[in-house]
């Protein structure tokens, strides 16, 4: 991948990556940092990476950075006992979008990540498996469970669909 192809990757994938990180971290600043770190890592390896695989490589880096971040954050929270900044305070009306946001936050972290990769970026199971270092069956099962949980929450909260 040359310089212009790398710059094209910035134009094409940074928005999606940022949204994914923002949804995962719930913090604009952290999301921006993670996006920048991901692109820095991509740049370091840009000569060895084929442009066709750049997107999946980028999301893989971002996902692992996010995992590192959450681990560090958990350690920090254990010490400080302070919650991380939430981008959106949950709004408990029955608006589908709000309920979905709340429901998403109730999901285990891995399920949430897989649903975001699937819904935000439209990745296939095999691609998600590569990014998250899981196997395809595990990805399928996690997404299945996530969908069931989300559906259950929507029904429980009597959201009009």
């Amino acid at each position, binding site marked *: 991948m040359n310089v212009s192809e790398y710059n094209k990757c910035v134009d094409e994938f940074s*928005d999606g990556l940022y949204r994914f990180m923002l949804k995962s971290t719930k913090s604009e600043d952290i999301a921006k940092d993670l996006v920048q770190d991901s692109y820095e890592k991509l740049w370091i390896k840009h000569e060895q990476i084929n442009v066709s695989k750049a997107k999946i490589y980028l999301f893989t880096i971002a996902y692992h950075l996010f995992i590192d971040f959450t681990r560090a954050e958990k350690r920090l929270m254990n010490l400080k006992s302070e919650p991380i900044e939430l981008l959106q305070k949950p709004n408990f009306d029955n608006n589908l979008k709000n309920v979905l946001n709340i*429901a998403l936050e109730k999901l285990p972290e891995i399920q949430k990540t897989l649903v975001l990769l699937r819904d935000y970026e439209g990745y296939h199971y095999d691609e998600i498996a590569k990014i998250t270092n899981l196997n395809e069956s595990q990805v399928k099962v996690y*997404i*299945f469970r996530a969908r069931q949980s989300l559906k259950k929450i929507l029904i429980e909260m009597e959201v009009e*669909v």
Partner: protein
Amino acid sequence: MNKITINNYEAFIIDYLDGNLNEEGQNELKVFFKNNPSIEHPTDLPLITTTEKNNFTQKESIKVNYNNSFAIEYVEGNLKKDELLRAKKLEAENKIFSLEVKYLKACKIAPDKSIVFTEKELLKKNKLLFLFTYKNVLRIAAILLITLSLAVFWNYKAHNQKTIVKNTTKKYFDMASNKRYNNYNLKKLKAQGSITHKTERISNLKNQFIKKRNEKNIPQNKNTVIKIDSNNLIKLNANKLDNMIVATDTIKTNSSDKQIATNNNELSDNFKENIVAYEIEKEEMPKKDRGKLWIFLTTTIKKLNKLNVTGVNVNKNESEITLGQFSVTKN
């Protein structure tokens, strides 16, 4: 239509009593009361009263005859063609399945496209700046080194190359004497006055011959055999000789009134056609001259062979040329 819940079912009963509740609503109300037996309701309503006559007729539409994951697989787009058809049919006919699909579709999280990463320019790299990366500089250095090495090598080779003196010796053929000279000797002889007539470069002769042969479209390897018969003493097989253009000239014998001559049909390119002829005026050629004639003849043929002359022609009206006791016959 709103879903019937514990908070709004009364409104549906009122609609029913007013005759404003359609069949679908009535069925849903029935299902609702069935599922919530604790709710108080007017039992005398025919809608609620379950009798043999008023059996629920749309059982199939609310049966769950599919497995738990079917709806999720459908929404995820993982179904095969036949399963997909079944799911679509179920979605259209089965209210429970349809509702489940509706909820699952609502679970899909659409990205908010208004959220964009605003610091793209910070991530981008300058093309010119990264033209001189470590690897690129190494590449350029390697190319320069190779170019320099090659230049030094060629220079060295040129300096050490031995001067090859081109052999510029030119060879000439003197038709009068049937001799060959190199250009140095010829120059010398001409300066001495020994050779006054025109000589021709052998390479030119060859070229002229080839040109002539090509113009006449004379085929090669015609295999004409020239027999030189002198009382069966000598036979020359000139297989290589074909239709020929003989380059020869008049020569004199020692005998003053007898001479060997060609038919001097001048050709523009100094070639004379074929024939070695001897005018003897019916007199027997002296032995001495005969010997010379023979030597001349064989030498001529040898030279012709060397010149790649591939044959000997005679005049059309001559099939035999007499050379004293010798004769050249064209087969």
